[in-house]
């Protein structure tokens, strides 16, 4: 049962990440490969604030969100000068910069040795030490973020984002300062990703830079492509699928000597199959 609870927590965390990136990529059409950086900022903020200052988890989430927002403002301001593929390359570069900071600022982050001993959340003196309580908390947060995301995309602000995705120049003609909208949603996406990072840090109780590298950003992008761009339910289903599929493959009866390698082969084949027959993803509204 602990195993399923563990998977449930991971799915919740990645669902939050996927929804955060969906706002930027799916609804606004900005191909960002930097989400792991904001995820990492939230995680390290929580790790450092809890282990070094004994701060409450929920307060650390707020501070993590503020730091992620500041980083996203700076990064987003620079990236707003770019379009299309150049935006993607720029975001790629920023992910590498943030990862390098995690790895090399050893006085703050302990570099590759990571930060262990991160406490679980506590509310009014009650510590959420067991995994099922943590699962409930993470699902509640994921649910809240789903409703917030839906509110954003169904509002007039959200309609402008979709219009930017479809034809930015057309909407500029109507007087919309599109770079403001892009910057705001980029910051919002970063803040939501940092919440996922805070949960990750407190759940795993250990953070190191390896969880926030470029591969992770690509994985989060894969979740929303597979789940379906511009669909928050698709983002959640994408997280469910990509987290649970490799775990389910552990139980396929491959011979012991090749089981690990065959799992990876089958995983890759399933993804290719899905992209061939469902290129818009499980519930997507459009393709990249």
């Amino acid at each position: 049962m602990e195993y399923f609870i563990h998977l449930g927590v991971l799915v919740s965390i990645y669902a939050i990440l996927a929804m955060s990136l969906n706002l930027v990529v799916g609804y606004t059409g900005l191909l960002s490969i930097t989400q792991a950086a904001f995820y990492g900022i939230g995680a390290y903020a929580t790790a450092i604030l809890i282990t070094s200052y004994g701060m409450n988890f929920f307060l650390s989430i707020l501070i993590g969100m503020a730091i992620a927002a500041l980083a996203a403002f700076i990064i987003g301001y620079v990236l707003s000068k770019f379009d299309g593929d150049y935006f993607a390359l720029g975001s790629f570069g920023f992910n590498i910069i943030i990862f390098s900071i995690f790895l090399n600022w050893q006085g703050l982050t302990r570099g590759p040795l990571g930060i262990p001993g991160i406490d679980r959340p506590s509310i009014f003196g009650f510590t959420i030490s067991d995994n099922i309580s943590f699962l409930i908390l993470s699902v509640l947060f994921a649910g809240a973020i789903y409703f917030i995301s839906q509110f954003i995309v169904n509002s007039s602000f959200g309609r402008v984002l979709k219009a930017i995705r479809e034809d930015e120049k057309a909407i500029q003609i109507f007087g919309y300062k599109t770079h403001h909208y892009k910057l705001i949603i980029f910051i919002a996406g970063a803040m939501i990703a940092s919440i996922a990072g805070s949960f990750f840090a407190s759940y795993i109780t250990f953070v190191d830079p390896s969880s926030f590298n470029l591969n992770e950003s690509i994985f989060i992008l894969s979740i929303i492509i597979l789940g379906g761009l511009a669909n928050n339910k698709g983002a959640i289903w994408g997280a469910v699928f990509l987290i649970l599929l490799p775990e389910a493959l552990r139980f396929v009866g491959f011979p012991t000597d090749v089981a690990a390698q065959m799992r990876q082969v089958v995983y890759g084949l399933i993804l290719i199959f899905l992209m061939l027959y469902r290129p818009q993803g499980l519930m997507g509204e459009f393709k990249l």
Partner: protein
Amino acid sequence: MNKKIIILIATLVVIIGGFTIFANNKNDESGKGPIKIGALLCLTGPCAEWGENSLSGIKLAVEEINEKGGVLGRPFEIVVQDSTEATPASTISAYRNLVSSGIEYIIGPSWTAAGLALAPVASDDVGKVIITSPSLGVAEFNEASDNIFNLWPHDDLATRALAKYAFDNGARNVAIFGSKEAWYQAQSDAFEDEFKKLGGTIIIREDQPSEQKDQRTIALKINAAKPDAVVFTNYDNIGLMSKELKNLGYKNAQYTINLDESRLTQAQGSLEGAVYVTYAPATSDFQDAFEKRYGKKPGITTDNAYDVVYLYAKAIEDSGTSDVEEVNKTLSAYKDFSGASGNVTIDDKGGVEKPAVFWKVESGKFVRLEK
């Protein structure tokens, strides 16, 4: 294809997978079935050679024990999970998979980064799980909790011995080729610290990501610095860097901590004459038994993993029960152990001490140096 069908297929995979856990791996509560040993090893990625070697040692030990009637009349059974040591979450998933299946004795993980991530999680399972790594060389792992053990000595001690060896053999200005990953950085720091205490100088230290395979620029920098010796702690890329240095005409000493066949092959002869530090080789009895069973020599960590199985067997026999709490107490009380990997002294924090041994690459083979 209808999206609902895709979602249905996905859900079915999960349900079938979940059902399989309970159908095949549920714990035998009668106490009469096999004692399951979880092999949580790196079977894919850069550490795969270590994980595969460990698994072969575990299999041999389990076969031998079962041929003699098992432990307390019960056979051992191996349940293998790839620890997928690329990220902490994946290693912890594999661990949770084993523990949820009722497995109480685990061997693994293989390398340091996964161990550091797993230690806090495994610490919460005192009294439920015992975990012993056959190949993880840092103290933070086994010192995290009373149910965590380590049959591989702490490598920074061997690294300090290497620094002394290099200094005693005339090196005064050394280049370090390292990486910003947990184990690699720990060794670079240990070497630098010890070498400077002896009076030597680190004239250049380059820490490169292990996934960076083009080492030409770094090789140029190192070669230009004209070191007396180069120390490789970037374990993944020893062979690649050594080849680049050879191409640039570097002829001075090369040192490293541990060396395995795949890295030697990667080097394509450029590590000829290199000296590395590790621990005593497997006993000749073990080597013969392994070669007789599998037709090849044991690789790095095979003997250690073999010994972990025997250590568990001894602790269960001595406890008279397979109850984890009792076995944990018995294991923690051992002061020494003699097995395929030689004689080890077990400290009171679940780690071991073994004397470091120096080896040299001669004619493409590993030759032990008598010092």
